[in-house]
């Protein structure tokens, strides 16, 4: 039941986002793992469209936010260097009628948040956002506002080499469950996109609402129930510890990173319509989940070191026979 629903969700998104099934799955998996995702790419690759489409695919449930289009609430913040924290979380304004200060909620009070070009904002703003992501709550003055359990951030960032950016420190990157690179599409897909650009542009109208808010909450619970084999957990331990021992890696993966990895693996298995994790998942997810948590000694190492460790472990797992079940 839940797998079918997921299939419809991904298919639905893929009608808009062409030629990127893997990336769509990543985003959905991050959502189901109750995490957040960081997309790193050049402008115009379709990040915003993806976030919007995802939000619109989920139908309106019992929400107290303003929903633009019948789906769950979707907000977009374009980060700039002069943005202030209160531009995100909102501010107290004087209400003439009540003769009191009332809190005017900012754009953070939403379900799906698209934080565009997060690395252009000042560290102060970045940390304000990251606090909500981690704690799922907002503190303004003396009041604390609980965010909805379903709070999903899709942050985008420009490649670090570009000017006018404040790169996110490793500690903050750690809060993102995944960091993926969008990349450009292939020739055929691009041709296809140009042929159909009109319908895509008017995506608002064509995207169907296939899942409800409740469905998502349910799927998130489902994801937690996905079975992960003890040998796989052992493999993950080896990978995580391997990153700490590797000579070319200055900062290895943290235990939080390992937990996140397992969460993501489970969600990923569900996205792939399985109720168990397999070795392929480990190999597929290792880079998006683990890579951004580590600091490498050189560029060469950042390209190869992680996959060396992972490949070795996955290969061991592939050679392992079927273990007797208890």
């Amino acid at each position, binding site marked *: 039941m839940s797998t079918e629903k997921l299939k419809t969700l991904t298919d639905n998104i893929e009608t808009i986002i062409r030629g990127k099934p893997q990336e769509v799955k990543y985003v959905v998996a991050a959502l189901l793992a109750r995490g957040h995702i960081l997309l*790193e790419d050049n402008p115009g690759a379709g990040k915003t469209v993806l976030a919007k489409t995802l939000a619109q695919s989920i139908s309106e449930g019992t929400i107290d936010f303003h929903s633009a289009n019948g789906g769950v609430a979707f907000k977009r913040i374009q980060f700039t260097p002069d943005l202030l924290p209160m531009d995100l979380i909102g501010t107290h304004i004087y209400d003439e009628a009540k003769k009191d200060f009332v809190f005017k909620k900012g754009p953070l009070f939403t379900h799906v948040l698209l934080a565009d070009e997060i690395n252009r904002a000042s560290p102060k703003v970045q940390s304000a956002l990251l606090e909500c992501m981690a704690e799922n709550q907002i503190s303004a003055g003396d009041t604390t506002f609980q965010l909805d359990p379903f709070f999903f951030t899709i942050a985008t960032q420009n490649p670090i080499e570009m000017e006018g950016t404040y790169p996110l420190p490793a500690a903050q990157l750690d809060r993102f469950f995944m960091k993926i*690179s969008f*990349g450009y599409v292939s020739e055929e897909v691009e041709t296809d996109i140009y042929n159909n650009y009109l319908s895509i542009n008017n995506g608002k109208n064509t995207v169907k609402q296939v899942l409800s808010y409740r469905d998502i909450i349910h799927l998130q619970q489902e994801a937690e129930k996905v*079975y*992960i*084999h003890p040998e*796989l957990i052992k493999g993950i331990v080896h990978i995580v510890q391997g990153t700490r021992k590797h000579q070319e890696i200055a900062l290895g993966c943290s235990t939080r990173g390992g937990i996140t990895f397992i969460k993501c693996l489970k969600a990923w298995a569900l996205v792939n319509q*399985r*109720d*168990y*994790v*397999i*070795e*392929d998942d480990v*190999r597929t997810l290792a*880079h998006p989940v683990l*890579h951004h948590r580590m600091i490498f000694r050189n*560029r060469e190492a*950042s*390209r*190869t070191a*992680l*996959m*060396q460790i992972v*490949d*070795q472990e*996955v*290969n061991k797992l*592939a050679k*392992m*026979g*079927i*273990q*007797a*079940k208890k």
Partner: protein
Amino acid sequence: MEEMKDFFTSDKFKQLLIRQVLVVIPTIVIGYITLRFVNFSYTALNTGIVNQSIYFSVGIILAYALYYYGARWVISLIILWLFYWFVERIISRLPGEFDVFYASARFQLYSTLFVIGWLFGLLLAKIRWAHFILFGLIAVVTLVSVSDTIDLSLSYILIHVAPVVVYGLYMLFLSPVLTERIEIDFKKSKKFLIRVSLFALLILLALIITENLFSGNLKAAEKELAARGAKGKDGSGNNNKNNYDDRNGLMEKTDDGYRLKDTMRVNSKMSSSDKLMFCSKLENYFPDGSPAPLYFVYHYLTRYDPVKESFTRDVNIPSFDEMEVDPARLPMYYSFTDTSIIRKSQADKFRKITEASIYLSENTWKHAVLSPSSAFHIQTIPVEKDFQKTFLSAYKTFSFTSELNNAYFVYNISASPMLEKIQEQRYEELRKIKNYKKVDSEFLTYYTEYPSGKIYDSISKLAFSISSKEARPVDKVLAVRDFFLKRNENGKRIFRYSLRAGSIDDPNIPSSKMLYDFLFKTHTGYCTYYAGASLFMLRALGVPTRFTTGFATINRSDKNKGWYWFYASQAHAWTQVYFPEYGWMDFDMTIGNEDQQSAPKPDGTPPLPPPEPWLVLSAKAESVDLTKKQLVASFKNLIFQNTPYSLNKTFTRPVDASLCRVLYNKRDTTLAAIKPGDSLIIVSYKDEAKTIPQPHQGVTIETQVEGFPSPVIADEIHIRGKENGTKKNDTAKKKNKETGKNITLKDIAWVGSITLGSALLLLLLFPLIYLLYRFTRLAFAKQGTTKADQVYQLALYRFHMSGIERETETPLEYAGKKIDPALSIHFAGFMQMYLRLKYSSKNWSDEDQTHLNRFAKEVGPAIHKKNGFLKTLLNYFNVARAIRYFQPPAAELNDTLN
């Protein structure tokens, strides 16, 4: 206490113990084997294999354990240095009795071995592939030792190289396991047990192959080794070969060669044998640099036994200065110092320390020290390899000698002005001693003890008739000398030298009577007569004197400065006279033999320049007689007295090869190596040949060849080559096989190529063998998950060998992206099922069973369909591909992010 217990029961300690057993002990064993072999090959190292191994093992064990507990290179080396420093301190602090020489040579060897052991231990602990370094080192050492062996045979090589190879294989099998934790409960350490059993299997296989291939050779080698061991056990092993008979002479025959008798009967016959007894290098020179010979002393006979009427050795001597040690019992480089001799030596004027190296032939008595007098230190030294045939053992001695003393004394009046001057100087010096008043009375009494009796009284009277009691000691000595040199009215000497002591050579007459006869009647005798008579006369005059036996130094090498050689006939007796502050001086009263001048003896000292041949034949062997040690050779070209000739016809001569050296490719071999038809170079030396025909002017060479001795005595035979065709070679080879000896290079190459060939064949067949193995595993697999595993493994291997190789992708990706499109088989579906079985919490179902069986049947046909039967088969000979199957995939470059 509790802590100690914890330490010993801790897991870390147990792991260390296991590793010590698994790694260190095999290394020690191979170290022991190598050391033993090296000791066997190089006598210079021969100082006790057990001690060597102990030092080596202690080094390894300590270094390994220290490393295990955290002492890395620097710390370990510091500890080693401290250890070394302490030992050095302890040795230098030991009281003076401790011998420095003793410490140095051995200490260096042992400390070197210890440090080598230490380094080995560190390497083993630190580097994973250290086994290969050690293996390489040991192999090189073994091979070098093997290559130095004279009679090289395949079995010899095998026996010595095999342990090293076994060690290498053992480490090769074990080293991957060692980096991991080893379960002490062996039930749990499956991996380890598998490796050990694999190793055992391999060795067993090798043993079976070796046994089948070389069983004959091995038996022969075993016999050879057994023979060697037996020979080593009973010492020199040449006891019964020499029938040198000198029973009545100065020498007596013992199990270990000829020795000078402890008791010197005056009627002992002088030995006249020209057997080479020993050779020595004496570091004693005159101020002008010419060698100053010294007499070589065996024993002092100090006490006259009136019952036996002979001089005997005595132990209770005041200031006894004979070093009592058995050099044959000193291992190589061990040394012994008698500090009491240093202490007791009261002679301090003109004293010096003289070094002498003595090389003993097999004829010499080896259990007493032979050296210039007052030796106080002895160290055994090796004999150079080239002379090991002549000399069996050697040692070096240090003696206190007087600069005044030398063998050019007294009697042999020299013609050289230099020597005369030295004798004069000595006389002047010794004249300073006026009497023996200052000498310890006990000492004086002992050495002037004089028997009473009619004969002795008359000797005493004679003594007083030639000198007075008040004369200075040296004048008394010279008076005795002059007495023996006296000439009669006709100008002829009264005393003569003769080996046949006149007509009274009758053993029944008591010795004292013989002395009496010698002095008053016959005036004819040899060294013991002169020494005995002068001993009595000098003692009668109150001069402390002793009877000395040993060797006179006559033959001085002209080629090698400081070298002397000694024949059995040079065994000698003379007197030593004591001069306070100067010590004991040799005085030889024996007069020269005027009647018979013995011919100069050939120089027997090493190192010899190559001997000069009188005849060199380029010959062909016609027949070989091994029992007579003779061969018949035909020759046409020869070098006779340094002139080459080519004869107008072929001569055939018997050649006596009983004493000759046979060489092949510059290596020593035996006469048996010569086969009829071989071309030889036969060399005969000038020195050895008894009758050398001299070249004559105007006589044709052919006539001269007719005059050659028959048989020609050969000193060296060089085998130049096997002249006949391959057929003969083949028969020779067969013969070799039958006798299991003398294996040629060809045989080694043959065995080598067979080994290599079978290894290559095994490698070529390896992919098919593995396929077979997979099929067998599948056939024996139980239904269910095990079967699924086997199907999966077999399928992976078959797909891989069909040419579609998995790289870094996971099996599922491999199935979906590579196999299914290429073979149109539903591998991805199987993979999904397989992964579900493997990773999901759900159990096995019947549906899976049918799916599995269906897929298992599809694999083969799918591959055949794509590749065809022949290509499929051929694919299994792609060894490189099969090897890649077992290799972990190379890491993929991940370009997606950057």
